[in-house]
């Protein structure tokens, strides 16, 4: 008798979501949510906030005898400095193709790894490099030059003392 009563009730007003389904769905939702939040937390792990690499901003003294157009590479730096009548400028030596260190040559720069070639002002004249060598920000302080490897400037930007 009672069973009949509940069946009729259920037929008249069926539960919108059966209790079992509701619990199942919430469990699934909680699981996926927890997984997602854990993923969000862990995704930042591989990226260090401060890396221990040497500072890319440095100070260097150009040799007095440096001729216009003659390259000067400070020891241990992947940057070349030039001085001419318009001022001092710095060009990065990191190949824009795959990160090898290019070598200054009489006609500009050559990359040993895949044969990219660059003009003296850094723009690509051959090989697979997709971009010109970037010019780096320089400033003069007395007879010393500050080079900031983090800041690129328009090609042709030269610092005058």
């Amino acid at each position: 008798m009672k069973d009949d009563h509940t069946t009729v009730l259920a037929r008249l007003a069926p539960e919108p979501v059966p209790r079992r389904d509701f619990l199942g769905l919430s469990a699934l939702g909680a699981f996926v949510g927890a997984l997602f939040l854990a993923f969000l937390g862990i995704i930042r792990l591989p990226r260090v906030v401060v890396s221990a690499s040497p500072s890319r901003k440095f100070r260097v003294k150009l040799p007095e005898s440096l001729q216009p157009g003659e390259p000067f590479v400070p020891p241990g730096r992947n940057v070349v400095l030039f001085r001419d009548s318009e001022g001092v400028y710095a060009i990065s030596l990191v190949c824009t193709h795959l990160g090898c260190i290019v070598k200054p040559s009489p006609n500009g720069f050559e990359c040993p790894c895949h044969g990219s070639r660059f003009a003296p002002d850094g723009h690509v004249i051959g090989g697979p490099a997709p971009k010109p060598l970037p010019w780096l920000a320089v400033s003069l302080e007395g007879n010393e030059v500050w080079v900031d490897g983090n800041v690129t400037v328009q090609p042709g930007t030269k610092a005058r003392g």
Partner: protein
Amino acid sequence: MEPRQAPLKELWSHLREAPRRFKESAFRSGPPVTDRARSEFVFNNLFLHIHPVRVHRWSLRWRTTWGLGVAVTAAFLLTLITGVLLMLYYKPYPDVAYQSIKDIHYVVPTGRFIRNIHRWAANLMVVTVFLHMARVFYTGAYRYPREFNWLVGLGLLVLTLGLSFTGYLLPWDQLAYWAITIGANIAQSPRELTDALGITPYFDPGGWMKTLLLGGPEVGDESLIRFYVLHVAVLPLALVILMGVHFWRIRKDGGLARPEDADALLGPPRDLYPVFTDVPTKTYHLAAIVRGRSPAVNRGPENTIPSMPHLFYAECAVFMLTVFLTVLAAIFWNAPLKEIANPAVPENPAKAPWYFLGVQELVSHSAFMGGAGIPLIVIIGLGLIPFLDRETEGTGRWFGGPGGQRLVLVSAVFGLLSVIAIEAFAIQFGWLRQWFPDIPQLIITFVNPGTLLVVVYAIFSLGIVHRYRSARAGAVALFTCFLCGFVVLTIIGVHFRGPNWGFYWSPADWPKH
């Protein structure tokens, strides 16, 4: 009740029987001399029971597999054992790492020998993985019901190359440092595309991948630890798990692929004892309700022979041959070690390990398409093969399917000629940048010798599909072409490229410093 022996005498006899009882408790079946004991020999043993108890005679012919899968496994086990030994002395920190490899080379007793084995076994593994894949492809063994196992195999190929790549950095010498710098910048090469589109500041998957790999902007101590963890923990673990799945699936998919008429082709067995010839009258009880193509359903185990001794002896032979070749190489050739890594002066030329030199040749045309685009296209193409080729003709036979051996030959000639022609043209006359200095990078990214080669191969293969009305024929053409392309590009990278990646007929012609 039996009269008991004197307690001390009993103890003494138990002690005397202890070795025999120990042996019986460890190996629960007796010597494998009867069919039943041979079966028990396999399924009572944790390490052997991934094998079937009985194996089809077709699977045991040398020509079916040339033992390549077993050779890969053997090479992997060699790297695993020697790798653990090397870990005892290796220290993953820049500069210290180099010194520790030097110690292994010059100070640790047998250290150089162990490192040589590790090195040559890894090389052998790469070679045999490629050969194994070619074998599976040319015998049509990737088809139903083995599609999934082909994909697992593809995953194993990628993991094998990943292990080689991560292992390459660990010595921290010049070779290592610059190969990894190039590799990491290939990971960054999607920037070539995003830069050309001007969206790098907002969407930079390349930079993200490089940072993930290196843990910083350049190859440094974080990178070394990352590569070390990948090399000794993450990748080997993934490889072992996938290997387990790979082996398990071979059995679940019904053993090695063989032609429908394999039994007729083999003829009646001679000199091979014992071969089942009777179809059993008993039903297979539980096995009978299993769906699918497990080897024992609906069929008698006819034309099969016991795995012990036939399969195991064959496997042992391949295993011993692999060990022999590796040790031989390790005695005569030393694993290379250059000067300590110098971030200011790259090697000239800076060459990756030989199996990546084909890719390096491609990246010398475009970093993104050569290093990421084309390899991705190749992997996706390989993965699609079993789903596009749903034919059944020629399964289990070398060069089976329409066209047969002749098609392979024609495709090989076409593949070789086109890669040589395109490379020769690019070497002789240069490419778009030399002719039009102001050409947009996007055009070079998509129109370069590498992509041109892929397009030529694809058109050729589509033509073959049309001509033979068969996806299998097209797949054979494409696979053969890519194999030829890979080999030729690798040879060019290894032998014909010198300083500044220039072309030289021989390393003897390289300019002297």
